[in-house]
């Protein structure tokens, strides 16, 4: 029996972001966050994109998963993380500074670096936890003349077709059938991302990460200033020891909100 396997070449776009536990100090030029005390993590939605790529490859029986990330030297950590979860190799588009770049510039750089690869599928997390622009995967799809879909919450990919279930608002969904090649952004919750195994971590050290220098030409959108949002509502802050807080909550529930 001949099993008709499809070799699918998948790129997963990942970003390294400041972890949610990091203190967010605004930098002295007020243009970004002081990164000197920050811890960096894989953008959480991107974990789901990596997992989905791995599952697609495993289901089809053959293929290649390539982790692609743009940023300074430090982003190789998240590429390695992807490799330790089973991805085959990495591409690092290296920038000199850790600066926010216009998404269109990022997309053009990534396109330039991956165009020759002819990926069948590009997966990305739906947006990043830092700037939340939510567009890089789709921009690349357009620039490389691929079909696109966003917010996929299930994929159904076989020899012939790429089908994704898109999440719509308020609990609605829709299946979309896409021509290949395609760039799809993945909604969080689509799967349960795996943890790297010890073997995976050891194996990742030997896998290739190709480094390509970024070339930033003109940024059309610029982040001018970061600031703490102004509060619009009057809030009673209860910041006391546990017992006093409990007493105050009981009081609020009973006398002010009249919850019982």
């Amino acid at each position, binding site marked *: 029996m001949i099993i008709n396997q499809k070799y699918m070449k998948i790129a997963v776009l990942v970003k390294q972001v400041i972890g*949610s536990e990091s203190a*967010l100090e605004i930098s002295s030029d007020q243009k970004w*966050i002081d990164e000197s005390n920050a811890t960096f993590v894989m953008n959480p939605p991107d974990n789901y994109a990596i997992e989905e790529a791995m599952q697609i490859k495993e289901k089809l029986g053959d293929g290649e998963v390539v982790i692609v990330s743009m940023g300074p030297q430090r982003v190789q950590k998240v590429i390695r993380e992807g490799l330790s979860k089973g991805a085959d190799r990495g591409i690092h588009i290296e920038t000199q500074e850790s600066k926010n770049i*216009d998404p*269109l510039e990022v997309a053009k750089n990534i396109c330039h670096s991956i165009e020759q690869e002819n990926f069948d599928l590009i997966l990305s997390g739906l947006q990043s*936890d*830092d*700037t*939340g*622009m*939510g*567009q890089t995967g*789709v*921009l690349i799809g357009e620039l490389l003349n691929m*079909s*696109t*879909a*966003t*917010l996929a919450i299930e994929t159904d990919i076989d020899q012939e077709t790429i089908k994704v279930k*898109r*999440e*719509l*608002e*308020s*609990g*609605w*969904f*829709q*299946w*979309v059938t896409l*021509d290949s090649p395609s760039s799809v952004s993945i909604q*969080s*919750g689509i799967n349960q991302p795996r943890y790297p195994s010890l073997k995976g971590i050891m194996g990742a050290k030997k896998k290739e990460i190709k480094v390509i220098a970024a070339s930033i030409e*003109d940024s*059309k*959108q610029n*982040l*001018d*200033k*970061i*600031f*703490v*949002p102004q*509060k*619009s*509502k009057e*809030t*009673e*802050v*209860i*910041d006391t020891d*546990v*017992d006093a*807080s*409990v007493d105050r*909550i009981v009081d609020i*529930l009973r006398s002010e*909100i009249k*919850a*019982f």
Partner: protein
Amino acid sequence: MNILVIIEHKNGVMHRMSKEAIAGAQKIGGNVTALVIGENSDSITDELSSFQIEKTLLVTNEKVTSYNVDGYKEIILQIVKVVNPEFIITGHTYQARDFMPRLSASLDIPFIPDLVSVENSSFTKQIMNSKLNASISSSSGPVLISFQSASFSEENISKGSSPLEKFEVSLDASNIRSTADEPFQESASEVDLESAELIVSVGRGIEKEENKSIAFDLAEVLGAEVSASRPVVDAGWLPSSRQVGSSGSTVSPKLYFSLGVSGAIQHVVGMKGSKNILAINKDPDAPIFEIADYAVVGDLLDIIPKLIEKLKDL
């Protein structure tokens, strides 16, 4: 200055955020053209005709009877050529997330999404999961922008009267590279959050699945329903029928008691209409405190068990 607002509609109803986009466009000021694409849109164009805008353009084409990303892109590109807008505006809806970046790459102009305000060509957007704001400017001429839910109010739309024009487009079928099935809803939910009077809501701050019993115990003594933020649902700790937010339910109970929810905008849009918001979070800068009536700074794992005991003793 010309402004193009792209209207979203479903089953003959205009998306609330498209009206907010009109209000935002009027505030920016200029000749506002509204674009409606697709069938079953009489009530939409009627409503638009009562707004003080330049005109409404209606495009119907047998190749794009309902939303399709490739079709929308092709149509809007043709409209952009005739309208010549400085701003192309939408609400920051799921649909806008889907097609606006395609336009951005195709037109080679920035898409600055999810804005909370626009002031003299400076665009303000939340970053770091709503913890900070950023001012963004563009050095391009025209820009694509989208507004976060409730950044503008449809009540502020200036009324007037405006004409409707039909606009013919020609589409090349080979440019349409995706086909969509009918939208559907998943099976009915086991809980009715929308009519709950009291809600205890858990976020990732409960840390472990087994800690969800704390929320259920508290809900039991209060006679409340339990809801959750998305990561709690994504982790499989609670079913999606309990999720509050832009991809879950919208609730407005008498009490929304949140435990370890950070207050990202996608959660907040689903609960900010609550009459009383009591939030517990160990981070004094958590964005949920911005909209809370009562902000309890502390560890929920310490506070809630004691609170349950106290409430039981009453």
